[in-house]
């Protein structure tokens, strides 16, 4: 099966609008639904295939116009285009609810070609979410960023996350674009579980944490670093000394030692927060959709419970991200605190 086989009907770029109209008028049993524009920019033919497979997972949970753009920088310009409708049946006997997908494969001077290709395919007046699946954001014309309401990326997939996040921030400038990092999204339920532990009874212990230990899967260091950044930002810790896997932070009530370690398994398989009064542990076994949470206090009291864990597939994480929205202010703070550690 070719990389482009699943993209739908090949069409001329200039005829995309007309062909989409035909697509919808051909079948009266379908209802078109669009709440936002969802653009995906990826590199190479293989990524087009995986991105299309990723999109398949959201039929029914998010109504968007998908604009999938594969890029291949090179000396000669060429653009291929496809259109497709992705439908699901909300209930028996109902009309199919469908969203449309426009796919473009762009070769050549990508930076010059992209703005027009993207702008011309957006459904008017709807927010634009961009899933950036490329290594470097240098291929993006600054004009595009002005249009993007949310940019979703994955620092875990980048070779040099610190440099790339810095470049992305520079390109976004002071615009309104919300930065959404899938490496952060992957710890959503873990963070929720940790936050729940520190209710009114345990809140005092939170400010006396002396040690943090986080175990992450190979390739998931940025998720772990962002969890650490989250704790640092929320608790007012500042980093001291060299960055690495063993570092020291300065908190309100003294130093906090932080250890990151790598182990095959879940993205973050274990987090320990240790203070004199309380030791909190959140652990997870890969493949099991629950987190085991325990809180052991110095006086011998112990609490254990389970909570839903974060999904492990790329589709689960993206689904969570598309469902969360918000301005991600907590992420911004966590990133600021952890950026040098990435």
């Amino acid at each position, binding site marked *: 099966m070719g990389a482009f086989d699943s993209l739908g009907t090949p069409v001329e770029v200039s005829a995309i609008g007309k062909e989409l109209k035909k697509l919808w008028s051909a079948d009266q049993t379908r209802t078109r639904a669009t709440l936002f524009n969802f653009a995906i920019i990826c590199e190479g033919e293989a990524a087009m295939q995986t991105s299309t497979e990723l999109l398949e997972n959201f039929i029914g949970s998010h109504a968007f116009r998908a604009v999938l753009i594969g890029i291949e920088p090179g000396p000669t310009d060429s653009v291929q285009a496809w259109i497709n409708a992705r439908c699901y049946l909300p209930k028996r006997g109902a009309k199919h609810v469908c969203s449309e997908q426009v796919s473009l494969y762009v070769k050549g001077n990508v930076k010059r070609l992209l703005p027009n*290709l993207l702008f*011309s395919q957006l459904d*008017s007046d709807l927010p634009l979410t961009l899933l950036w699946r490329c290594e470097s954001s240098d291929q993006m014309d600054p004009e595009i960023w002005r249009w993007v309401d949310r940019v979703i990326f994955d620092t875990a997939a980048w070779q040099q996350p610190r440099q790339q996040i810095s470049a992305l921030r520079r390109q976004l400038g002071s615009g309104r674009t919300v930065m959404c990092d899938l490496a952060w999204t992957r710890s959503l339920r873990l963070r929720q579980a940790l936050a729940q532990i520190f209710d009114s009874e345990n809140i005092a212990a939170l400010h006396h944490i002396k040690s943090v230990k986080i175990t992450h899967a190979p390739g998931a260091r940025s998720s772990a670093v962002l969890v650490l950044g989250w704790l640092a930002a929320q608790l007012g810790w500042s980093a001291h000394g060299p960055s690495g896997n063993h570092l020291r932070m300065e908190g309100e009530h003294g130093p906090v030692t932080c250890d990151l370690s790598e182990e095959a398994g879940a993205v973050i398989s274990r987090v320990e927060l240790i203070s004199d009064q309380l030791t909190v542990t959140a652990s997870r076994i890969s493949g099991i959709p629950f987190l085991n949470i325990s809180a052991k206090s110095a006086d011998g009291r112990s609490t254990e419970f389970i909570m839903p864990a974060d999904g492990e597939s790329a589709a689960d994480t993206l689904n969570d991200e598309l469902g969360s929205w918000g301005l991600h202010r907590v992420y911004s703070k966590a990133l600021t605190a952890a950026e040098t550690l990435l």
Partner: protein
Amino acid sequence: MPQPCNVVIFGASGDLTFRKLIPALYNLAADGDLPGAANIIGFARRDKSDETWRTELKETTAKCSRSGLSEEIWAGFSKRIYYHVSEFGDAAGYKALAEKLDALDAASGTRGNRLFYLSVSPTEYEGIFNQLAAAGLNDAKIGAWTRVIVEKPFGTDSATAKALNECIAKAFQERDTYRIDHYLGKETAQNIMVLRFANSILEPLWNHRYVDHVQITSAETLGVEGRGPYYDKAGALRDMVQSHLVQLMCLVAMEPPSSLSADAIRDEKVKVVRALRRLEGDGVGRDIVRGQYDEGSIGGKQVPAYRTEERVNPKSETETFVALRMHVDNWRWHGVPFYMRVGKRLAKGGAEIAIQFKEAPGVLFNTAEAPLGANQLVIRIQPDEGVSLRLQCKVPGSTLRIEPVKMDFHYGTSFGKQSPEAYERLILDAMSGDATLFARRDEVEEAWRYVDVIENAWHASENPPPLCPYASGSWGPKEADELLSRDGREWRRM
């Protein structure tokens, strides 16, 4: 009701005749709207027979007609098409035309009614009007009517517009003069009045208390496409703003007319143009941005800069893009800016009017931490004619997440019937004697007066505002964005 008549098209060899007028007349015939007794006579210089012209027309009608071409319908329709060879200034040609029309009246029952359609360069107008008058073709016979449809441009400034109108007035009365603006023939443009005055929920909101601003956009992806010599003299302001966009603005901003008669409506429209705040001093530089397209890419293809287009002056200072901030100085619209933008080689083609309402108060939901967009009513003129309303809506779920949703109405899918092309409606109206959708002399001259100030500031002042370049395929020069951002606003995303 359209009445039997002979339609004489001056400029029978022209592009408009082939691509728009004949397909429009054909579709009227196909839909049964063309009067049974109606003939079409093409008037042009090139020598050809009726049969040759019919064959040429059939080919382009098959391509350009919205309903395609049925051999059966064409067979009947084409029998009513004739070709008349004459120079536009040749008196004998008009005498022969008069004889031909009389003969057709007698043979086909067209009752002496005549509709002249001037689809020629405005430089030919005077000669044609003079010859029509000399041959007595401008005078209606007893019990019949004679009307003339004039294509834009209606002049190039207020002086030439006035001269043209006086020239028309020598041959035809104003009530028989139909200045065509195809934008007004579009279904959605006609729907503006229905939307406003047939829905009681909208009119109370249609004023400065609830409307924050209005945006009118007409965007094309095409360049000058062989119209270089005309366009280089006209520019976007004269070509589009003075006519189409001001007409749309009038429909949005006018007061309710006292009746649906053509003059009652046009009386209200002209009041809007008169109320347009005239730009003085540095007003043109402040409120108007003009741009010219540079090279760029559209649909993945490289396209040239305006100045390198065929038959365009390589040093041309003609604008291919204009953005304007306008004010209608009357009670209803006090303090409400009307932003207009029109341009060629933009990212996406389309024309629309967006009424942006004021934002919800900054309590409860619309907070500084989580600002919501304003409600917006969008009237799409083309393509995909329709109306949409943007509302804020809670996303289902346990958390309070608010997202904008669009309530969308599409003409194309809602009525199960194709909208007629603008020219179909307008030709039919002219045959029926309904001038509502045509511009009146005073509207045209007032619009030119507004535009003249801008043209003078651009071309006759010592320190003209800059011509801002923009990349083809973009949404225009950054200065156009700044025009709105200075007011804390931004152009709508089309």
